[in-house]
Structures are given as C-alpha cells and as structure tokens.
C-alpha cells in the first residue's frame, strides 16, 4: 500500500530524491562534526543518529530537568525520544540543549538549503 505510493513519489519527484543522496559541500559547522567536507543529507542524518546512540545521548535525566520539563511534552525523564545534546551536537542543532527525535530531520534539513535554480 505504501510501496507504489512511495515509488510514485520518487519517480515523480526525482529532484526530491536527488536532494537526499547528492553529495553537497557542507557548511563549516557540519564539516567539523562529520569530519569530512562533503556528504549527502541521508548520510549526515545517519551519522548524527549513530552519534547519538554511541554517546548515549538519549534522555539523560541530569541537566536542568526542571527547566525543560515544563515545556516538554512528556514528563518522563527517561524518555528516549529526547536527545540531550552534548556540545558537539549543540553546535549543529541550533544550540538547543534538548531535541526531540521527531524534529531531528527538520533540524538537519536546515543545513541543506534548497538549491537555487541556476
């Protein structure tokens, strides 16, 4: 049910697909994080996700919980859906100390602005 739809979306919209897998020159902030100067949006996303897992950044209950628990959707300090950014991650995610996993793709996308028609 999703496959034909997805297939259609991809074949209909080759540009969208290209945005995802084309190698692009990274901005300085990302370059430091990735340790390479070129990557695709998909590759970058995967790298960030594995970084989060490797460094155990999902919902560490320590930092200033009280401050954020109010604005967060969930009161569970062990909520795995929240990423507590370390300094490195903060650098690429708008300096946010906490990021919801659900908004991660949107935040990542900010580093990959749409190409202007030339």
């Amino acid at each position, binding site marked *: *049910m*999703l*496959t034909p739809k*997805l297939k259609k*979306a*991809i074949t209909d919209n080759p540009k969208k*697909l290209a945005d*995802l*897998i084309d190698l692009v020159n990274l901005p300085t902030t990302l370059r430091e994080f990735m340790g390479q100067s070129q990557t695709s949006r*998909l590759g970058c*996303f*995967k790298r960030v*996700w594995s970084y989060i897992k490797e460094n155990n950044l*999902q919902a560490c209950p320590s930092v200033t919980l009280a401050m954020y628990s109010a604005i967060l*959707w*969930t009161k569970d300090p062990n909520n*795995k*859906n929240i990423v507590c950014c370390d300094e490195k991650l903060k650098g690429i995610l708008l300096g946010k100390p906490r990021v*919801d*996993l*659900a*908004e*991660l*793709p*949107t935040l990542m996308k900010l580093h990959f602005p749409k190409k202007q028609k030339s």
Partner: protein
Amino acid sequence: MGKIPQAFRTSQLPTSQFLKNKQSPSTPPQKPYFLTPKNPKKTQQKINNRPEKVKSLTPLINFTSPNLSDAKTQFKSLISTQKNTPFDTRFCNSVLQSYSCVSSFQDSILLLNYMVKIHPEFLPDRHTYHVLLLQSCKSTDDDSLSSVHDALNLMANNGFSPNKVTTDIAVRALCSSGREEHAVELVKELSSKDSPPDTYTYNFLIRCLCRNRSVSSMNNFIKDMREGFGIKPDLVTYTIMIDNVCNGKNLREATRLLEVLSEEGIKPDAYVYNTIMKGYCMLNLGSEALGVYNKMQEEGVKPDLVTFNTLVYGLSKSGKVKEAKKFLRIMAETGNFPDAVTYTSLMNGVCRQGDALGALALLEEMEARGCTPNDCTYSTLLHGLCKAKLLDKAIELYEIMKKGDMKLDAGSYGTFLRTLCRNGRVADAYEVFEYAVESKSLSDVSAYTTLEGTLKWLMKAREQGLAV
C-alpha cells in the same frame, strides 16, 4: 567446471575424447541463457542440440584486450609451446568465443581466418560460426541486420546452412540486446529460407514482444507467421498472451482469447486457467476467480498448488475469508498441501477483516502443521497487528523477525513506524529504521523517506493537539 586439470594438459591421451566421455554424464546441465524455469523440456532440448557450445572449456588464453595482433600472437605462442595437447575444434571454438567477448565482430572473423591458416587441423564447425553469429547479434550499436547477415553468409559459404538452433541463438541474442524488431525480421527471413523457428524460439520471441513491445506488434507477428509460413500459435503462446492481457487488467480480452483457444481446438490446461484466475484476483474479483475454479472442475482440468494458492489469495483479498478457509481443507484432500504462500494469503485476508489475533492463531496452526513461515508471512502479520492497534504484540513479533534476520516489506515498515510514533515511541521508530537499512529490507532512501514523512506527520498532529 570445464577447466582442464594440469595433468591432462601434458598427457598423451586424446584429451578431448576423454573429457567428453567423462564429462557428459556428470556435468550438471548448464542453463542456456534466459530460460524461464517454466519449461523444463526446453532446457533438455537445448542441451541436446548444442552440447559442445554449452560446455565450452575455459580456454588457456583469456583475452583482455580487443587488440587483434595481440590475440594472434597469443594464439600462435600457445600452439607452438604446447605441442602435446591436441588443439581440437572445441578448444579453438572456446578460444574464439573468449576473444569475441572483448573484440569487434570484424576482428573475430579475422582471428578465425588466422586460426584456420596457422593451425590447419582446426576445422570450423557449426558451433564456430554460432560463436560469430552470437557476437553479431549482441552488438547494440548496429541499426541493421547487416553483420548478422554477414555471419549467416559466412556460415552458409562454409557449408552450414542455418537450422533451428541457429535461429534460436540469433533470436535470443537479439532479444536480450533489445533488438526485438530485428529478431522479427530475421525470423521471417529465415522462415522463408527453410529454417523456421521451433515452438520454443517462437514463444520466446512472443514473450519478448509482449513484454517489451506493443500488443499490436505481437499480433502482427503472429498473423504474419500464420499467413506466411503456416506457423500457428500453440497453447503456450496463448498462455503468454492471456497473461499479458491479464496483467493489463483486460479480462474481457482474456476471456475472448480463451474462446479463440477452444475454437482452435486446443484444450486449455491448468496454466491457462491459473493465469486467468490471477487476472481476476488482481482486480479483487474473488467470486469470478471461484468461477474459474468451477469451470476447471467442469472441464476436468486438475487444479494444482498454484491454482489453490491463487484462489485463496483472491478470496482473502476480496473479503471472502470463510470460503478461502474452506479451500484449505479441499487442498489437503486433493493432495496439495497448503504452504507458506497459502497461509500468508489467508492471514492477509483475516487481517483485512481486523482480526489480527485470528491471524496469529493461523501462524500457530501453520507451524503445527510443519509449514515454515517466511519473511512475507511475518510482514503481513506485523502489518495486521499494527492496524489492529496491538502494538505490544507487534513489537514482540518484530523482535522475532529481528532475531531471524527477516526482511520487512515496505508496507509493514511504514505502518509499523506510524504506529510506533503514534504511541510516542519515536526512538523505537529510529531503531526500526536502522534495522530496515541494516537488513537491506528497503533502500536507504525509501526507508528514510518513510521515516521523515512519518515524523513530519507526527509533528503536525502534535501541533493540532492530536498526538503526544
């Protein structure tokens, strides 16, 4: 296979004879190209027709460059250094074949001439010319049949008039290089020269035409062959045609073809009926599929496992689960035991009715009967459980799948992600994404696109206060 052991290379034995005797019974029949497994007879026949060609030896020369003079030098040095080995025709053919893989057609002819000149024992046979013919058919940068004609003329001038093997080789090579029009032209031409295609070649071409070209081109070909050379379509041809129209969802035409079939005096077999039944199933017409089954019974055509699987699939898909279940029993009675496909189709039907637990029960039943579920079975169940909002069970099932390195299908993957996100388990959704990529269930891109889409949807739902 085929590599000459070191011991034989220097032996005084008549190697070729020895190898031939030894190999022919033990060699597993190597598949000639592009055979669909549907026609086991065909494989047999082809092997009888051209055993030598199929069993080509790995040559002592492996050509890497298309340079003609290099190839000549290599061949010459081979002949002069290894005097003991008899360089028989078969061996020379394999040398030529190896060279033809890298060279141009003209160069191959020149090499052949050179080989005959410096190695007079080499008497080119039919297979030698077939190597050249194959090469001329495979070149794609050719918009006429001129080099194919060259090859055929060369053959004829050396006393080998084309026969049906020639036709078959040429047609298959042409079709595989996307030159169907040329194949049609060549078949007509060869038919007028007394080497008409046999039924396998004919049907192969028909299949290629309806797969890659228009139906009208196929019909024209059938008409021309019937009127010009008296070659009529047979049961297999009709099955191909019916399959083609069924895939295009044109069941009326399929029914018409079935009538034409009986007018021609050909009795349809289970394959034809299965194909038509598949057509109905694709359109969700369960009762029509059942009608086909009843017709088979009337005509005395014995249904096989495929018939039943198609029927169970069609009935489940169109919501007639009860009837589908009934067929499980009938299947066992007729000796066609339900397999993973049968159960998966049935589970699909049960899940569509929202009874995911019933589908789980079927899983137990099938395992109890010694039928191993496959990836597709699990994916279907996962999908059903998610749809029925039984997330815990779905996760449990997913863990089993993960342990068994099973692949998720794209539909279940999407549904599972959405269910996880809806229940506020975004992190788990990320893990599933990772597994889908790792297990190569989906391409990175489609896995990510689905994840991104799902998350976007989640954010939107949150904004509207619909989700947590």
